[in-house]
């Protein structure tokens, strides 16, 4: 039974109270004295040459305080790519400058080329309309094949639209080719991993402010990682000394990756605040979010699986084109490469993997990491081609996977794609999935559906992902330009309560509840006296923030290390107070006692002594009780899972309904099962959304056709079933102190292939030989596939 408050307890979230009473504080809720408003002029064409921008009429409009154009930022730096990828021939990737405001050319619809600052938002909006921009429209580069074959370049100065041509693992290329050439059977699948818009419900927003008397800047912004944002602005874009810039990410209404990155609007409001000497606020409307938030996925892939006569996997070969959009967003080059190619061995003992990824510039919004980031793309390709192979070979899809699973006695396991998996038990996950999903009862449910005139299909999936991003030494070798440790400071106050300052940022993940559970368990005290501080660079240690399911595995480990230091020092203080050696002191339930005696002091008494150090051995122990730890992991963590989906397809309309969705995940140790289950639910909805309804659609001119909730289908309550979620089959991560793996992305990684596999199974059961439908599997696509397969 889980305890009431510590590790393993489904403690309800303390942060809920402010969100449920309307007293959360999101960036747009903040009103600073003498605040002004920024509105951006954005390109209405996908590609064009800026001939001239006349701002005079706008400047003369009521309430207008300043107008900025790209000219104003020519001398400052660009927003950089955080990860260097080298092409197969050793050439470094192409890195065209990404300016604060477009200069010379506009490169996607929504690309900002000017900004108006005014007393009110209405005045700023009106004035933007008065900017006269003479932009010569150029043909748009939208399709990736056209981009690679033509001479119409998104960035003229690099004279190509190919950012890089990456091979992984290049030394395996020839052996993989040979394995595929000589195999008993090769299954081939061409598929599209559809472009998605992350759609955090809170649009991006930023407020820049500046204090002329000290030269200090403050940026309130919707960020998942305030220190990373500060670093990028200081070191690359505006050159503001880091110690003169405070970045505050207050309550943030979801991120899903889109709020990892630094965006030009953040630099603009800071520069404008300095110029005006007044705070400048910008809040995106939803269409701006669609046009300018970093999008996700957008891969076009051919994958081949070679098998022997017994169904053993011999090789996976993948050829992918990855759309990076018009500019390199901060981690856009890592996502299709090291977060994708390294996962292309999946859960399997396949000996050979080769992945080729060509990254392509187009006149579309930048594409970067979105919930799962490369790993959903890897899993989708693998688990779709395996399903197709099972059908071609007449094998049960579960049995074919089991046959090739890495077995529990094989860890640590060096995968053919270059990772070392530390722990897992994929058969146990599959066993549990079969139980929870009631696979045995499927045939009866299929017959019941058929009696209603509906086709029922069953789909299965196994996934592994690499989380806890990441070991700095490893990613440094692979091209990362940042370290990926995290940090925590545990401050015990004199009266015995604690503030824990963490580098991870919580924007829905429940850190304010889960992190105290860990500290409380270690100290044996009530979590209610522990407060989490996050999101403000002036208060927290330098951490790298929240993404890649890393908060608990990396920052949580830093919290553990800092708490261990607290315990060690507190034992010294207690030893002094009790006139005993620190080595004879045991901490239990918040009480330090001398082994074998009845002498003890409470945690609170030790805290008080640390801050009122009377009769205190100052020569041996410093006063105070505050410790910081930085934690850099030794390896990625490897969550894994087995998922199942049952769909009903209406053969008359092509409409797909998800009837049952089962997720069995190995997250290692689970701190708060309620929160973990909620994370899986959200991931499942985003994955089902990708599979069935979500699509980002550009026309041939680069116009975004799906730029509002009227046009981009978001999953709604009536699109979703109740989910069955289980995490009872955890194997502990071997290299972090809590044995945790991370749970934020799993649902979005595991569910899309599961759903599509189920749809294909349903159509096959209805006698239609449909082998693939690209996502989103809309009624029109299903109906078309059914007609073509008749």
């Amino acid at each position, binding site marked *: 039974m889980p305890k009431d408050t510590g590790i393993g307890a489904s403690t309800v979230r303390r942060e809920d109270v402010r*969100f449920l009473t309307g007293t959360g504080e999101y960036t747009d809720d903040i009103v600073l004295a003498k605040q002004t408003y920024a509105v951006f002029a954005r390109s209405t064409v996908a590609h064009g040459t800026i001939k001239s921008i006349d701002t005079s009429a706008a400047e003369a409009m009521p309430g207008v305080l300043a107008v900025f154009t790209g000219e104003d930022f020519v001398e400052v730096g660009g927003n950089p790519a955080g990860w260097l990828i080298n092409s197969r021939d050793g050439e470094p990737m192409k890195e065209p400058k990404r300016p604060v405001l477009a200069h010379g050319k506009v490169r996607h619809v929504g690309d900002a080329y000017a900004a108006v600052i005014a007393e009110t938002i209405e005045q700023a909006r009106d004035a933007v309309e008065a900017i006269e921009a003479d932009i010569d429209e150029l043909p748009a580069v939208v399709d990736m094949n056209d981009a690679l074959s033509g001479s119409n370049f998104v960035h003229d100065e690099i004279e190509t639209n190919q950012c890089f041509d990456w091979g992984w693992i290049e030394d395996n290329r020839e052996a993989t080719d040979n394995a595929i050439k000589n195999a008993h059977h090769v299954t081939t699948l061409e598929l599209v991993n559809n472009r998605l818009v992350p759609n955090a*419900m809170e649009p991006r927003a930023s407020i820049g402010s500046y204090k002329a008397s000290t030269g200090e800047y403050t940026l309130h912004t919707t960020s998942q990682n305030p220190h990373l944002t500060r670093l990028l602005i200081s070191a690359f874009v505006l050159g503001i000394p880091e110690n003169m810039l405070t970045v505050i990410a207050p309550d943030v209404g979801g991120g899903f990756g889109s709020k990892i990155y630094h965006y030009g609007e953040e630099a603009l409001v800071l520069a404008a605040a300095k110029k005006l000497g007044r705070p400048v606020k910008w809040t995106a409307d*939803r*269409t701006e979010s669609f046009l300018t938030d970093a999008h996700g996925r957008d891969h076009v892939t051919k994958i081949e699986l070679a098998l022997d006569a017994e169904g053993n996997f011999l090789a996976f070969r993948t050829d992918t084109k990855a759309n990076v959009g018009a500019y390199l967003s901060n981690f856009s080059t890592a996502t299709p490469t090291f977060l994708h190619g390294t996962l292309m061995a999946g859960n399997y003992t396949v000996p050979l993997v080769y992945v080729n990824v060509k990254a392509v510039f187009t006149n579309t919004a930048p594409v970067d990491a979105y919930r799962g980031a490369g790993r959903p793309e890897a899993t989708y390709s693998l688990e779709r081609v395996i399903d197709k192979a099972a059908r071609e070979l007449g094998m049960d899809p579960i049995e074919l996977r089991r046959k090739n699973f890495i077995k529990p006695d094989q860890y640590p396991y060096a995968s053919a794609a270059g990772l070392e998996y530390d722990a897992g038990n994929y058969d146990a996950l599959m066993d549990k999935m079969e139980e929870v999903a009631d696979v045995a009862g499927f045939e009866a449910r299929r017959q019941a559906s058929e009696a209603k005139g509906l086709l029922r299909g069953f789909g299965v999936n196994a996934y592994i992902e690499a989380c806890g991003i990441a070991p700095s030494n490893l990613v440094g070798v692979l091209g990362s330009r940042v370290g990926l440790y995290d940090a925590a400071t545990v401050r015990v106050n004199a009266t015995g309560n604690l503030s824990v300052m963490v580098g991870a940022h919580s924007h829905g993940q*429940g850190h304010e509840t889960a992190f105290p559970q860990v500290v409380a368990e270690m100290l044996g005290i009530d979590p209610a006296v522990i407060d989490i501080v996050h999101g403000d660079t002036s208060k927290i240690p330098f951490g790298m923030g929240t993404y890649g399911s890393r908060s608990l595995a990396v920052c949580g480990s830093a919290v553990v290390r800092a708490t261990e230091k607290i315990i060690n020092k507190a034992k010294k203080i207690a030893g002094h107070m009790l006139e005993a050696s620190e080595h004879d002191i045991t901490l239990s339930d918040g009480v330090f006692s001398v082994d074998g005696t009845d002498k003890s002091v409470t945690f609170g008494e030790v805290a008080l002594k640390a801050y009122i150090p009377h009769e205190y051995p100052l020569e041996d122990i410093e006063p105070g009780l505050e410790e910081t730890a930085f934690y850099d992991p030794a390896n990625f963590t490897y969550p894994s899972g087995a998922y199942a989906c049952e769909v009903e397809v209406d053969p008359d309309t092509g409409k797909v309904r998800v009837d049952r969705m089962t997720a069995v995940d190995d997250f290692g140790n689970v701190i708060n099962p309620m929160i973990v289950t909620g994370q899986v639910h959200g991931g499942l909805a985003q994955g089902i959304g990708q599979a069935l309804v979500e699509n980002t659609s550009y026309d041939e001119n680069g116009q975004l056709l799906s730029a509002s909730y009227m046009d981009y289908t978001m999953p*709604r309550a*009536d699109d979703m079933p109740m989910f069955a979620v289980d995490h009872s089959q955890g194997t502990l991560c071997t290299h972090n102190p809590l044995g945790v793996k991370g749970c934020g992305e799993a649902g979005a990684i595991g569910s899309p292939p599961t759903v599509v596999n189920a749809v294909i199974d349903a159509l096959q059961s209805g006698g239609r030989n449909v082998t693939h439908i690209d996502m989103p599997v809309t009624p029109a696509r299903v109906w078309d596939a059914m007609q073509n397969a008749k």
Partner: protein
Amino acid sequence: MTKVTMTVNGKAVSGDVEGRTLLSSFLREDQGLTGTHVGCDTSQCGACVVHVDGAAVKACTMLAAEADGAEVNTIEGQANADGSLNVIQQAFQDHHGLQCGFCTPGMVMSAAALLKDNPKPSEQEVRDYLEGNICRCTGYHNIVKAIMAASGQDVPAMAAE
């Protein structure tokens, strides 16, 4: 500018607004009631749902001037008189019906409107009613549970998880 007067969470308020001022802007900017969130511009997401004369309304779709004389209730007025969470709010916390919290005010206000009209909704009725409220975090599972629990129905029996 037009002067509008209305009752917000039981308190008489007034202000000068432009003809184009939305009720959501009036609440957020003039009244400082920032719990009502704006998540889209097309009346789709429902983060801004408030009650106007007892009916659930998307505050981004109503002009402040149209609410002149009306009784408006927002998320800030939902807690019990002693400040504790009301039944719906408590159910959302107990069943983890929120994560980032941005859609939550609209969800709670929609749930209250639903339960007023339909005190014991089925799961499907809850899902259908929430068609106008988008949540990106929860997958709706725990929101549906919370609303059914708030209606006094036995939730754990509904589905495995």
